[in-house]
């Protein structure tokens, strides 16, 4: 089916997130306003105004009531999804990068960038049920990894936190003590900056994308490498289909390196791979710039991609997609 082009952002997209029911799609961009859309027809529902910098990441609670956003304006904000009202603002001394609600939505993991001599951190905040009781105290602060930590997500039962970033190492931390439990090694791990992490629907494995032009599938409990998907492009975004054994990988050369006029030159395609066979299934073209964000609808029947070009493209799969034989 023809994709639905959603033009609402003035700057490159950074992140996309569906709510649990898959009827709402939240988008973050380098402009300062996260936006919510109807995931079905691409109609814009509203925006969340208040950030004063690029918004890098967001997460929505299981009941679709709360939105959490992390921004370069050194704050992480909680929003009322329905009204767009700001509920709370966590203040940091450096730009916030990744945010993720835990199972049960009582905790959130936040990463902050290295800034003005401060190291990058992974912090855990308690999210109060009643916003008026919300405090800014951190339950846990982890430091150590060099460079930005581009993504941090919760492991099974909130017992661990998985992080990945500029030092190309995936790490699993104990979310109680902050102790480093496991890290990927040079041999199987990524060679360059890890740009994205995406968990499977059941949370048993996750996919990491890296500028080393590959994406890797890992066991979330043991951090064993299961699969590797190789492309010709640096990978900016990855997603795992909740329905079929497919993964989608997006990226492209850095916008500053795009010199040719031909838009194929950058290969700004979302590439589908068979998750188990590691074979390429096909590609979805369209963006005029690298793909920065990818997300599957929880029903697996549509996905959306966000590009450096400022567009969100919403794709509903054709019936043939569900009959692809490998």
């Amino acid at each position, binding site marked *: 089916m023809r994709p639905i082009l959603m033009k609402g952002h003035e700057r490159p997209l950074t992140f996309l997130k569906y709510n*649990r*029911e898959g*009827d709402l799609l939240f988008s973050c961009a380098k402009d300062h306003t996260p936006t919510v859309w109807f995931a079905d027809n691409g109609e814009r529902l509203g925006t969340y105004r208040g950030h004063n910098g690029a918004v890098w990441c967001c997460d929505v609670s*299981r009941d679709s009531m709360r939105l959490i956003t992390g921004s370069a304006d050194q704050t992480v904000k909680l929003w009322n999804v329905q009204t767009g009202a700001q509920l709370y603002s966590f203040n940091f001394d450096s730009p916030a990068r990744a945010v993720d609600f*835990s*199972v*049960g939505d*009582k905790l959130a993991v936040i990463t902050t960038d290295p800034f003005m001599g401060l190291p990058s951190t992974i912090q855990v905040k308690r999210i109060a049920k009643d916003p008026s009781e919300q405090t800014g105290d951190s339950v846990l602060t982890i430091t150590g990894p060099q460079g930005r930590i581009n993504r941090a997500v919760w492991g*099974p*039962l*909130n017992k661990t936190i998985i992080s990945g970033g500029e030092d190309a190492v995936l790490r699993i931390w104990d979310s109680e003590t902050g102790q480093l439990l496991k890290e990927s090694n040079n041999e199987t791990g990524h060679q360059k900056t890890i740009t994205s992490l995406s968990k499977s629907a*059941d*949370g*048993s*494995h996750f996919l990491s994308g890296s500028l080393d*032009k590959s994406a890797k599938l890992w*066991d979330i*409990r043991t951090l064993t490498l*299961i699969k590797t998907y*190789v492309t*010709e*492009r640096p990978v900016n975004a990855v997603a795992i289909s909740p329905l079929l*054994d497919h993964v989608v990988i997006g990226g492209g*050369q850095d916008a500053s*390196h795009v010199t040719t006029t*031909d838009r*194929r*030159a*950058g*290969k700004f395609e979302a590439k589908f791979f068979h*998750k*188990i*066979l590691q074979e390429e299934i096909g590609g979805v073209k369209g963006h005029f710039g690298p793909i920065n964000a990818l997300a599957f609808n929880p029903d697996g029947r549509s996905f959306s991609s966000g590009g450096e070009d400022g567009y969100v493209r919403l794709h509903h799969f054709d019936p043939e997609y569900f009959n692809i034989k*490998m």
Partner: protein
Amino acid sequence: MAEVVSMADIEATALRLGIDISSVDLDAIQIPPGEDFGIKSDDDEDLYQEDGFEMEAGFGNIIVVDNLPVVPPEKFEKLENVVRKIYSQIGVIKDGGLWMPVNPETQKTLGYCFIEYNTPQEAELAREKTNGYKLDKSHIFSVNLFDDFEKYMKVPDEWTPAEIKPYTPGENLQQWLTDEKARDQFVIRAATFTEVFWNDPRQMMPDLVYRRQYWTEAFVQWSPLGTYLATVHRQGAAVWGGATTFNRLMRYAHPQVKLIDFSPGEKYLITYSSHEPSNPRDTHRVVLNIFDVRTGKVMRDFKGNADEFTTGGSGGVSGVSWPVFRWGGGKEDKYFARIGKNVISVYETETFTLIDKKSLKVENVVDFSWSPTDPILALFVPELGGGNQPARVSLVQIPGKEELRQKNLFSVSDCKMYWQSNGEYLAVKVDRYTKTKKSTYTGFELFRIKERDIPIEVLELDNKNDKIVAFAWEPKGHRFAVIHGDNPRPDISFYSMRTAHNTGRVSKLATLKSKQANALYWSPAGRFILLAGLKGFNGQLEFYNVDELETMATGEHFMATDIEWDPTGRYVATSVTSVHEMENGFHIWSFNGKLLYRIPKDHFYQFLWRPRPPSFLTAEKEEEISKNLKKYSKKYELEDQDVSLLLSEQERKRRNMLLDEWDAWIQNCKRLHEEESELRRQLRDGEASDEEEEYEAKEVEVEEILDVKEEVVPFDLDQME
């Protein structure tokens, strides 16, 4: 560098261990193969490298001048000044680098002196230029490099006959040709690795033969018959080969070698280097060595400044058009030639001297080329005297130097010569000025070399103002292809030198209109041609059958920079080399345009098919085979089928295995997930988590009144009518 252990240390260690060092027979110690205990031996590459360094840091830059006059102290200064004057013209003498020893008893000089230059190149040059310099009748300089003394000292006084080693049969260097599956090899260079592969189209992937990191410091090159792979290093070049792997067969010392070139029969290797002069006003110094490939012996060297090697031809690498020496006379490697000012110097390889001891004098010659098969030179001389003396192309027979054919051409701006690979035809592309002299147009002069009197035919394109983008002869054939046209999508025309009724006339076969192509690649077997749009056309490919005059397939290798047919004409490789940052790697296609496999490689520098020597089959036998192709191909088709069945069976098994593995793993995960279900429910304050993943989508319509406004709408009666 290995740690240096002094003899004293060894003795101390020996004493400590209670070993009588004098009783140890050092020669009896055998080191296990492949283990050097950190001790460098002559065979080690890095020691070899160090040699080169030592040359520069050692005494390579010192010369000894002998046969100077013996003078008393009062004339010492005068002599020193004379010597200094002579030698400072050649290069920069180091401070205090001129030393004339004096006999302490007589206070007279000893008749020789030492001169130290800044670089070994200057010293070398000084030796070359002043050895035999006549200061006066009785004082003729004898100049030597200081380093050479040592060499001469070592010459034994008594002659001993050379030891004749028993003959040891070498490896079969042509082993790769006997591959059971008749596959071809290629070499690629990507990042720091150089790898040789079999092209295995049946398996749809390459099959590694040999891989080595830092194999070469600049590039690799196959010899023309495929026997050797040449690598280039700071200290010189090396060739590799062997029956099953790649061993170093020979090294050719030539410091800072930049370019290499094999003779067509791969008997000789020419190496080239250019050295920056110490004085920036001087020109670069060029050194060329011609080696015998098998013995590694220098057969002849040429040294001089770059100017001497740049005449004629349009400047290539650092001002020199490469190859400086062009080989002719077919595969026998009999002659080689280079162009100079008003001369073409033709050498023969029996003595490595000029034929008849003199060069071929041709006023103002700017370009020449050899016939690929015969000792015939084609030369081009441009117009002289403002058009009074016409330009001309002539064919000269070697070694007789008689002119076989000549053609005068008028108002010529440029000429290019294209030989057909069998040396049967020569096409000369002539750019002529129009009457106004403001623009040029192009025509072709076609020479039929093998016919009596070498008839020449003139060919002009239908639209003679068309610019010629590319020209290519069909290998071993009678046809050629031309890309012509001024618009962004040029036309491609095919011509034949033969026609059914009218032999001896060139005729047009077909013209393809507005194609996205700017390069022509004939299959080495002829008949098929790949029309390629490189650079601006982003890698458009069209596989064309010239026999049937039809397109077999079109394809694209986005951003492709290089294309090469395998030597048999069965496969084509298209590659994107590191001139582009992205897309690096190569694709292998069948001759008819089917993409067989793709290999992405970052920092991709080179792709080269291993050439094959010409077939030993006679033309008749080849004809017979191609006539009865069905009979011969049956066997191979069956093999192909077997392989493809086996492959699909293997593939099916592999997939099933992967799927089974995954299933087992995911089942385990599911079990864990279920076990944790209760814990998850607790985390969610008792909300049933997993079963509730299923939800129901209900459409609820909600009407919300946002605002109510009353407005009086004017009602215009006139509009009713």
